């Protein structure tokens, strides 16, 4: 039997799309820098798809290598071009980056020339590389608890995820049909996927639970590996066995 050395998979990546209308190297660099300074965290190392579908440069050629270099110098990672017309096709091909046809990407674009911060890049900007048709379950909003869940108390997130921004005390119980996140110590009992969702997980900042359970498969405190105790951890189900691993 021979094993393949690789596997091909479809995937979706999130990128920033840069709509460029006009390319004047000097002002481009200055304007881009200003834009990035409005949200430096967001743009740091962000992959960028350069949309040239609306680019007209009054017939003069565009130095795409310089454009890429300017983007890189400002901390962006250009991954390719999109919507190249015949006019720019060969110049873009010369850069070695990917060139995607205009129609393949369904995007919400960042308008490069728009001056308002309000219209700047949306973190959800994405390129659909693959179209997946799936049945969509209507999602209820997560239940968010901001105070500690104390001994004797019980919190249940019905049909939703549970987010606890504090601790879950010994003797307390948190339950969710979805995932459970505890941004503090988990010392009580946590039951995720109580309606049978085997994909549900438990995440916590400090694992010290009396009991953890996913879709009815549970583990008691005494069965927890000592190496994971008081560490940040996640709990999930793999082949009917609960796994507790560090985060």
């Amino acid at each position, binding site marked *: 039997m021979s094993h393949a050395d690789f596997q091909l998979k479809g995937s979706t990546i999130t990128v920033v799309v840069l709509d460029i209308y006009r390319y004047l190297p000097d002002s481009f660099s200055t304007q881009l820098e200003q834009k990035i300074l409005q949200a430096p965290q967001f743009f740091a190392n962000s992959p960028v798809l350069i949309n040239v579908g609306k680019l007209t440069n009054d017939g003069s050629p565009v130095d795409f290598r310089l454009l890429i270099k300017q983007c890189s110098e400002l901390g962006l990672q250009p991954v390719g071009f999109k919507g190249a017309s015949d006019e720019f096709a060969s110049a873009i091909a010369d850069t070695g980056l990917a060139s995607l046809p205009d129609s393949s990407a369904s995007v919400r674009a960042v308008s490069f020339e728009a001056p308002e911060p309000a219209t700047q890049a949306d973190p959800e900007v994405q390129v659909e590389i693959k179209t997946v048709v799936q049945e969509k379950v209507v999602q209820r909003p997560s239940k968010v608890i901001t105070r500690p869940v104390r001994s*004797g108390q019980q919190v249940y997130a019905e049909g939703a995820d549970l987010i606890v921004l504090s601790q879950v005390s010994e003797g307390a119980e948190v339950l969710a049909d979805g995932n459970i996140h505890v941004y503090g110590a988990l010392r009580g009992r946590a039951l995720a996927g109580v309606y049978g969702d085997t994909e549900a997980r438990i995440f916590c900042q400090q694992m010290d639970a009396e009991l953890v359970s996913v879709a009815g498969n549970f583990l008691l405190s005494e069965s927890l590996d000592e190496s994971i105790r008081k560490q940040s951890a996640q709990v999930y189900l793999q082949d009917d066995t609960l796994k507790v691993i560090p985060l």
Partner: protein
Amino acid sequence: MAKIIVVTSGKGGVGKTTTSAAIGTGLAMQGHRTIIIDFDVGLRNLDLIMGCERRVVYDFVNVINGEASLSQAVIKDKRTDNLYILAASQTRDKDALTQEGVQKVLDELSTNYDFIVCDSPAGIEKGAQMALYFADEAIVVTNPEVSSVRDSDRILGILQSKSKRAEQGKEPIKEHLLITRYNPSRVNDGEMLSVSDVEDILAIPLLGVIPESEAVLKASNQGAPVILDSQATAGQAYSDAVQRLLGDEIGHRFLNVEKKGFFKRLLGASA
């Protein structure tokens, strides 16, 4: 409008009444008109610790039942200005305190006092819930041992779910942790939880740490709150806690074992 402070714990015998007497007295000594109310129906205790048991004619339940007016039942403390006591009933049944009745008394007192300190009975059931229901702030008294900490955690859950503030969706009751009967050498020996262990489990701000002290028993035998004993470590620690309750930021004392004497140091060095 008076600020209502409940002294609560879940577990019994941890020092709630000792604390109510000390903190109430400390607030009055700072010039705040203060009344301490004993909610422990049937186990009347506060008046003994305050040394006014012989002066109790009418109690809390008498007032609620309309058998006496507040001015007849409230006892003015003999030692400390600005300090008043409302005793619990000795003999009545546990259901004598009704929510409406308590509300009426607290409303009436509210206009006349700066602080109302409610000494809670033990447990997490009706009596304790009555004492905490109207509170603005809570002093959660905890001994550094597992069962006491667990009960404090339970009472914290009740403070945040069954109080008036919780039911009405108002700003939550302000929580203070008071660790009492703290014995640093037993902590070092691993027989007691440390301050940081308790803080870690309960996750509420630390108001004070009261050391285990013989002065407490002596004070209660004499019927004088231990805070009046300025020589005693417990008295000093209660004074500090009162300062913090009033907003001062001062460091915690008595957390470590006292420095060893010369001989002990010699012995310790050779060990």
